[in-house]
């Protein structure tokens, strides 16, 4: 068996909901999950034996520890890489050289670029300290928000809604790739098959599509993905990083989960 820990923040939910489908498609894989309380690196500590423990009791019965020493591989998902740091700059200023947005003040593109680099570099430094550059660990950025995000939820999208999102996305991603290349972790950028447009995930993968009937979606349901995404993303991870191909893919994990067939 290949024991894989999926750790991270609220984005772990998509993989957790796809657990049964993943373990069916990859019968040699055994999954474990852990989410950082308050999504903060500083909320956990990794001891000398490789046990990652929450410093405080997590809410709602979430696991408070995971023994990473027993894992063959670690997939750390949902990492922001300072992406939100760009939000305020782009929300508050026009960027000279990019499409004007009607702000009274502008900042230059070199400044935006240096600031992005600063935020990503600082994020990577924290990541490096967190799991001590454990080479078993592959880090995945948080998925891009879904393509069909309604207008009222757009604030969550930040600069990804900018007319020059493609250029800004490239600028941010280049910084992520550069700084992660200096760490011993792997980096798994969002696979092209799970990207609908620059900075956007396909609408079908939004968590909003898999809500129980009658439940009104919130903005977070468009920035978080469903079990189908969790399955597809893990499949891409397994193929590239574990050298495993799925042995079956018959049903939609999100439908299974929604119909009560998911992990109980």
């Amino acid at each position: 068996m290949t024991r894989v820990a999926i750790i991270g923040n609220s984005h772990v939910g998509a993989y957790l909901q796809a657990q049964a489908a993943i373990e069916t498609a990859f019968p040699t894989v055994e999954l474990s999950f852990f989410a950082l309380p308050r999504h903060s690196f500083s909320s956990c500590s990794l001891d000398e034996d490789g046990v990652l423990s929450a410093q405080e009791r997590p809410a709602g019965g979430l696991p408070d520890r995971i023994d990473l020493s027993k894992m063959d591989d670690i997939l750390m998902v949902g990492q922001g890489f300072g992406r939100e740091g760009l939000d305020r700059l782009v929300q508050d200023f026009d960027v000279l050289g990019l499409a004007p947005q009607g702000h009274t003040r502008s900042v230059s593109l070199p400044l935006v670029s240096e600031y992005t680099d600063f935020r990503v570099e600082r994020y990577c430094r924290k990541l490096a300290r967190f799991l001590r550059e454990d080479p078993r660990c592959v880090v995945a950025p948080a998925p891009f928000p879904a393509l069909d995000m309604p207008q009222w939820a757009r604030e969550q999208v930040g600069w990804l809604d900018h007319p020059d999102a493609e250029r800004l996305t490239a600028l941010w991603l280049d910084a992520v790739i550069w700084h992660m290349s200096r760490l011993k972790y792997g980096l798994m950028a969002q696979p092209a098959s799970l990207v609908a447009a620059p900075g956007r995930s396909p609408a079908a993968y939004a968590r909003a599509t898999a809500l129980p009937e009658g439940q009104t979606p919130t903005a977070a349901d468009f920035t978080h993905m469903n079990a189908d995404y969790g399955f597809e993303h893990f499949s891409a991870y397994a193929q590239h990083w574990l050298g495993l191909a799925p042995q079956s893919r018959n049903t939609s994990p999100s439908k299974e989960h929604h119909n009560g067939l998911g992990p109980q």
Partner: protein
Amino acid sequence: MTSPYQNLEERAFWRASVGRDDDAALAQLWSPKLALDRATPLMTAGSCFAQHLHRALLRGGWAVLQGEDMSTHLPNRLCHRYGYNLFSARYGNVYTARQFRQLVEHALSDGPPPTLIWERDNRYFDALRPAVEPEGLETPEQVRQARAEHMRALREVLEQAACIVLTLGLTECWIDRETGLALPTAPGTIAGRHDPDRVFLHNFTHAEVIEDLRATRDLLRAHGLQARFLLTVSPVPLVATASGGHVGPASCYSKSVLRAACGELCMTDGDFDYFPAYEIIATAIAGGPYFDEHGRQPTEKGVQLVLKAFGLALGDDAGAPLQEASPPLSSIASDEDTICEEILLEAFRK
């Protein structure tokens, strides 16, 4: 028999007052003409030394105006690299009285501000503040847009300022022949190309410095603005002279002219005061000089003494706690990802 020196205060006598950095001695260094307190809106501008003053006044809790503020968006290092929050607006170093005069003229003018653009490696720089965009901008039009925004912000600062703390640094200045604009640096230093047919060196005289400062004041008044001036002279020597002479005497000339011009204005014009920051750093009057090992940059201790003398002379509590110049970065932008606890709880619950 009486002497005119007989009943003078202690500070009038060298032996009694010079070489001391205690509070009583520092408090005597300056007798303010202007009524200032911590609520007085201050605008800072000037040469490199003005950056020290700006920072020290902010930390000291003085009401320093901050146009084009980026402290809530960027870490200090990036703010400063891009010319933000070094002075009361993003004008970069203003070394000469002429530069400041033209800056105020441009800000108060109703028309589009004159723009002089330099080029380097297909990038474009505002020649009147070439260091604020270290990588330059993509097009000349972007330079013009950024300058227009800067002028709007500067005008707002001028409108609010009750006192302009202006630190004069140089008398040597490069002038663009075609436009007559005073440049902060020679073309070819940061960007542009030195062409003797396009620029010439001018070394301002005492009379010119006074004329420029008075003209600036007159311009403010013509626009109904009431700011008065607190002048200082930067103690930082010239880094180089283009006068043909030795940098040492050239530096002494510059500082002497500026100091004399400040002195004359202070004596003859109620809108101008002079604060002896130069003397505190560069001479022995407060136990100095306070320069680093290269003899050029003021030490932190010297800068702190300047601020202390400033506050003490104004009757301020020198022991008042220092305030942060800008919020710590942790409050500017957190690295923690957006929290969606509910989603996670729900996933684990199922």
